[in-house]
């Protein structure tokens, strides 16, 4: 008996891939040059040729659940060597962008974060929240903010308790929502791309952490070192800033609350190690962000298509670092109006980054990690050795 394989092409999906930066999709004629030139594709299960045809066929569930789209680190060598200008690297980037919308809950948030028309509203929400905190904390009298010179006391305008409540809720909500999305992603990968023969979950996780830590796959990209350094700086800069923020929360709020004498009073001043972590992180993020922005502005062939989601994520992330550093500098310079305005912007951007994480490109920290773990655990993430 013949078994019928009925394909159900999702035409809307094909259109959405084209809109999300993969407009070159239909040029692909399946020659498979891409799979051979790719420095990360494994020998027995190479990408991106297969993902291109799956996308052309509108096999949405299959292709979005394919961990291979996350094994790609978009060096775009496939795109520059593609004989048809089908730009597989950009198509895979579009597929990753669509993954957030597909797996994340609630799905309308995914759509909103991908839509540039929704940006003002998405910024207005944290702006109103922060304004509310400011007005509440100052009992309506915010005259002290409007001085050009003078003392700056951020905790007076935006008390720790209020911010901590907002951001702790944000973190919990973000982690909760992300977990649901990632749980759906994991199950899809397992159902649609099953495999065995890998080293198992624990070893795969260790290998993934090590790989991300060393940025090994970025380093393999020969055509563009700027991206490797840029991403590495942002990555460690962000971790460093995150550590500073966590320590700040620990020493200023928790330890003080516990009544321990080890508590610190805000603002933590230079050269306290907590402050040093923050400054180092901020500088690294600014340099890294600048490298990546420069790279995208150059519009070189290997950079690929820069979409709205790419830009908004990169700019918000870099701006968080810039406003964070400025908040410190303006406070030391005793410039209240500039300092409060900057700090306000900083808080709005941090809110954007944190609360919306599961639906923006920032979500790649979770999705890519999980896909790498899955691919390694089933043994499909061993780049082909190209030396003779």
């Amino acid at each position: 008996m013949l078994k019928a394989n009925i394909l159900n092409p999702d035409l809307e999906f094909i259109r959405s891939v084209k809109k999300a930066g993969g407009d070159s999709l239909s040029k692909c004629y399946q020659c498979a040059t891409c799979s051979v030139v790719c420095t990360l594709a494994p020998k027995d299960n190479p990408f991106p040729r297969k993902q291109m045809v799956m996308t052309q066929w509108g096999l949405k569930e299959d292709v979005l659940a394919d961990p291979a789209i996350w094994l790609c680190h978009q060096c775009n060598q496939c795109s520059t060597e593609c004989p048809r200008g089908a730009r597989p690297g950009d198509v895979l980037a579009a597929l990753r962008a669509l993954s957030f919308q597909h797996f994340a809950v609630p799905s309308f948030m995914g759509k909103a974060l991908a839509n540039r028309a929704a940006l003002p509203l998405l910024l207005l929400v944290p702006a109103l929240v922060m304004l509310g905190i400011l007005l509440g904390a100052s009992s309506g009298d915010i005259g002290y903010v409007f001085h050009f010179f003078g003392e700056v006391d951020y905790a007076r305008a935006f008390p720790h308790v209020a911010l901590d409540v907002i951001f702790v809720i944000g973190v919990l909500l973000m982690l909760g929502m992300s977990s649901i999305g990632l749980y759906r992603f994991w199950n899809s990968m397992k159902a649609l791309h099953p495999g065995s023969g890998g080293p198992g979950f624990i070893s795969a996780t260790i290998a993934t952490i090590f790989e991300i830590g060393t940025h090994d796959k970025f380093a393999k990209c020969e055509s563009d070192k700027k991206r490797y350094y840029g991403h590495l700086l942002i990555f460690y800069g962000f971790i460093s800033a995150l550590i500073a923020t966590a320590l700040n929360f620990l020493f200023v709020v928790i330890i003080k609350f516990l009544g321990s004498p080890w508590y610190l009073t805000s603002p933590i001043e230079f050269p306290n190690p907590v402050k040093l972590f923050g400054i180092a992180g901020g500088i690294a993020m600014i340099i890294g962000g600048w490298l990546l922005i420069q790279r995208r502005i150059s519009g070189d062939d290997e950079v690929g298509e820069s979409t709205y989601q790419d830009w908004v994520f990169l700019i918000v992330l870099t701006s968080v670092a810039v406003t964070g550093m400025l908040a410190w500098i303006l406070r030391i310079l005793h410039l209240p109006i500039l300092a409060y305005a900057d700090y306000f912007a900083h808080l709005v951007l941090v809110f954007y980054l944190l609360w919306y994480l599961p639906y923006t490109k920032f979500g790649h920290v979770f999705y890519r990690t999980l896909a790498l773990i899955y691919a390694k655990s089933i043994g499909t993430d061993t780049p082909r050795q190209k030396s003779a």
Partner: protein
Amino acid sequence: MEISESGDRITTDLLVVGGGISGMTCAIEASELGKDAVLVEKEPYLGGRVARMNQYFPKLCPPICGMEINLKRLRTNDKVKVLTLTTVDEVSGKPGGYEVKLTVQPRYVNNNCTACEECEKACEIEVEDDYNYGIGKRKAVYMPSFAYPTIYVADPNYIKDPKFKACVDACKYDAFDLDMQPQTIVVKTRGIVWATGWKPYDAAKIENLGFGKYQNVITNVMMERLASPDGPTEGKINRPSDQAAITKIGFVQCAGSRDENHLPYCSTVCCAASLKHATYVREQYPDAEIHIFYIDIRTPGRLEDFYVNIDSNEKVFMHRGKAAEIREVPDSKNLIVAAENTLTGEITEMELDMVVLATGIVPNIAEDHIPADTPLDEWGFLLPNAASGIVGAGVTNRPLEVSACVQDATGSVLRALNTAERS
């Protein structure tokens, strides 16, 4: 045809530029319609690319079949004037009345030559052999197959070389004339057919395929020379690095073709050419494995049978996936060809003795422009143009196989004469 006493002014009906299979066909067809034709060829021989083939597909007969007949038709024909070693410098005028300036380069050998080969034997100067696409060497005095007239020709770069004297001294017929000068000829013609053909795409530009870097990577046109009885190996196909016998050979289709980084178009003949090469290899090596890496095998019309026939051979293997990487194994100089087999979804890495790149066709006029105002398409092929009245024939118009060139040329003659008639 009127030819002035000094031979530098000619009046004719048709000027045909290019003495390959298309140009020869044009000149002969015109003359058989009772028209005069001047046939101009840059090289010292006729037959162009076809003369350098081993066999035509799909019938696998040697080009000498068609070429000999055409040469005979030319030699016995007083309505065609053939000028070899000749290029076109200027075209002026309009359809029905052109004036074309030609330059005839000196051959340095006159008609006393009996092709006795003594000069060639005595010659100690060896030079790169373009005729054989760089395989092997030729002497500084030489006679290409299909030389026209059938006499020797001296390489202008070496006639002043002190060692060249040995060649001159070896001649018993006083056939060398090293004082020959370039000659300018003005042709008045009513019509012009341009049939300057093609050259193979420069395979060294396809960096990932290693041509020019690895000795055992050759191109399809080189394969023709290796297999030709008048070629540098007298028809024996061995691998270049050590002249070893072939056990496993690969053919890379679309090498730089259908590729916007190289030639964006399909040259239409390379698939059948590689299948033909498979027959060359099979004839000399009954047990050799033949691996063909392809995107699509394009063998339209009757060529489908040719494809099916060759594919049915149990040691011909078809791999659906473009070979996008070739590396050399350092000691053996074998080659590893990598391609994704799109039918299994795995990357094949195959070790082969030798690899042939099926490179495409570049029209010569894309780089050596026609000295007249007549448009080309975006790839450099000639477009029909009523204002210039210049009619293309054969591969000047589009990539074509030999028999299609002959048909195209026949049509072109009619169009050129028609254009002249109506002007």
